[in-house]
């Protein structure tokens, strides 16, 4: 029996890896998800036979079966109900449950453990799993609340300062404990650590700006993975270790990718600070050209190749469906449409792709930044919807600009650019956009959704 279980865990590990591997192409990703899910089911079922040799009390089994049933039903219900724009919140919430599970495991072990016969190493692992799990739990909940707009940024010195103190405590207390300076039982000590870690999770996420939440969610995801791996180490369970490590690696990798795409270091994001750009910034008066909706609609319908650059504003306005309508109308007039997507568009990496996919846009039309930058000249017109900093040429031309070095979509190289904007307000980085003053750029003032709707109506009349 033991051999069968071990082989089952091996298969589960391979299925996780295969599932992630299959995620690299949109065609096979669905299969990949199914493979990973089946591997997970296998691992969970086998675990019921992996425990002790003696029979398990019925009470325990009943509780577990009940908990699993409710969990599956609730998970299905939540995922069926969610709007695609609310996806980041839900992922964050599910991440919190994983972290909570890891924390509870640590507490349960602490209740049962006999310190005299347990390895020092195992105690360290339990502490590590407990603290990481607790941070992921409360951190993810705050991240979810922030994305939902329920919690505002709190960037007070007190918050940041106490967060640092708690972090130091989380590292210091275990050290002192093992050196024998803290006269507490292991159990009491674990409970105290859990509380400190939970408070730290809250304070850790509070000062981070709402726009940086994608980075935080990805990081917290990675922390949950690491907590899982710690727990796996305690039980010597390879499926848990590998699953946890893969998730940890994925989370860290995505976090760093996003930081690079925003041209900010991870530390700066975590500290909630932004490069100070008060000095040395010369505000020039820009000569901007305005364009009306009929003009814009005409322009777009009499050219060959159009690119659409969707930004966060599009997602906020929930305008992706009208955007898809516009595309259909233009394609009927033999205009080809591409979407150029900046890596940090939306509220989560790749979120914009999901939103456009929901609106039935083919993924063949979705172009990544690097690819389209090389042949930007071939676009007759570019429509910028709710994006600002990611199309600012200052990032490449002006070393004094706070966003200098950030990868951008070089829309200014296209023959014509139409920017849909609500007002001349500055973007997230608070810098003037040189694009708007350029000769090939015109601005269509208005909300992304209504402007698109008006353009669609115009095109229908044409």
């Amino acid at each position, binding site marked *: 029996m033991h051999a069968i279980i071990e082989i089952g865990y091996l298969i589960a590990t391979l299925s996780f*890896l295969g*599932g*992630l*591997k299959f*995620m*690299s192409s*949109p*065609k096979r*990703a669905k299969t990949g*998800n199914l493979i990973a899910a089946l591997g*997970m089911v296998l691992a*969970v079922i086998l*675990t*019921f036979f992996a*425990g002790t040799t003696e029979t*398990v*009390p019925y009470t*325990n089994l009943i*509780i*577990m079966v009940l*908990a*699993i049933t*409710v*969990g599956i039903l*609730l998970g*299905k219900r*939540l995922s069926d109900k*969610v709007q*695609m724009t609310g996806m980041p919140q839900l992922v964050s919430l599910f*991440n919190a*449950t994983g972290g*909570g*599970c890891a924390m*509870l*495991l640590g507490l349960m072990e602490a209740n*049962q453990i006999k310190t005299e016969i347990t*390895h020092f190493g195992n105690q360290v692992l339990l502490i590590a799993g407990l603290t990481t799990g607790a941070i992921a739990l409360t951190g993810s909940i705050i991240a979810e609340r922030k994305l939902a707009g329920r919690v505002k940024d709190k960037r007070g010195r007190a918050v940041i300062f106490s967060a640092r103190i708690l972090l130091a405590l989380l590292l210091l207390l275990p050290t002192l404990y093992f050196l024998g300076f803290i006269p507490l039982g292991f159990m009491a000590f674990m409970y105290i650590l859990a509380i400190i870690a939970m408070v730290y999770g809250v304070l850790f996420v509070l000062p981070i700006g709402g726009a940086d939440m994608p980075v935080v969610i990805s990081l917290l995801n990675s922390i*949950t993975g690491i907590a899982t*791996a710690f727990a*796996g*180490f305690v*039980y*010597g369970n*390879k*499926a*848990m*270790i*590998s699953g*946890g490590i*893969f*998730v940890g690696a*994925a*989370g860290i990798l*995505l976090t760093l990718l996003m930081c690079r795409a925003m041209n900010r270091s991870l530390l700066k994001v975590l500290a909630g600070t932004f490069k100070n750009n008060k000095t040395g910034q010369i505000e020039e008066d820009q000569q901007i050209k305005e364009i009306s909706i009929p003009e814009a609609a005409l322009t777009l319908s009499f050219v060959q190749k159009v690119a659409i650059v969707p930004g966060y504003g599009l997602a906020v306005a929930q305008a992706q469906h009208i955007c898809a309508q516009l595309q259909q109308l233009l394609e009927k007039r033999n205009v080809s449409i591409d979407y150029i*997507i900046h*890596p940090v568009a939306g509220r989560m990496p*790749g979120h914009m*792709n*999901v939103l456009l996919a929901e609106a039935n846009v083919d993924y063949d039309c979705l172009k*990544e930044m690097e690819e389209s930058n090389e042949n930007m000249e071939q676009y007759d017109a570019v429509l910028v919807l709710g994006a600002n900093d990611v199309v600012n040429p200052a990032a490449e031309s002006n070393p004094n600009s706070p966003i200098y070095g950030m990868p951008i979509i070089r829309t200014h190289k296209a023959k014509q650019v139409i920017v849909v904007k609500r007002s001349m307000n500055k973007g997230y980085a608070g810098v003037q956009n040189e694009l708007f003053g350029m000769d090939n750029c015109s601005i269509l003032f208005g909300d992304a959704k209504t402007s698109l709707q008006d353009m669609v109506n115009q095109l229908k009349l044409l």
Partner: protein
Amino acid sequence: MDFINHHLQEIYFVLFCVFIGIEVIANVPAILHTPLMSGANAISGVILVGAILLMLRVPQDDYLNLTLGGIAVFLGTLNISGGFFVTGRMLKMFKPKK
């Protein structure tokens, strides 16, 4: 030291997992990053295995641990089922050109 000797196999295993994981994930294109994240999130729910292992050992009359364990099993399951269902739902929307 003793600990390291006992767990040498696991340590090797972790190191390999780190490298394989990074290699596999680095190849995922940006268009699929959101499904990747939620899929990975579901995989981290494998912590449920640990919760079940613990629950199998809890004595029948240890109500505190039974409660904590029950919650842990519930949370782990929610993580897994929600994660995979939502990933599946997202991926269903990625359609190739008709």
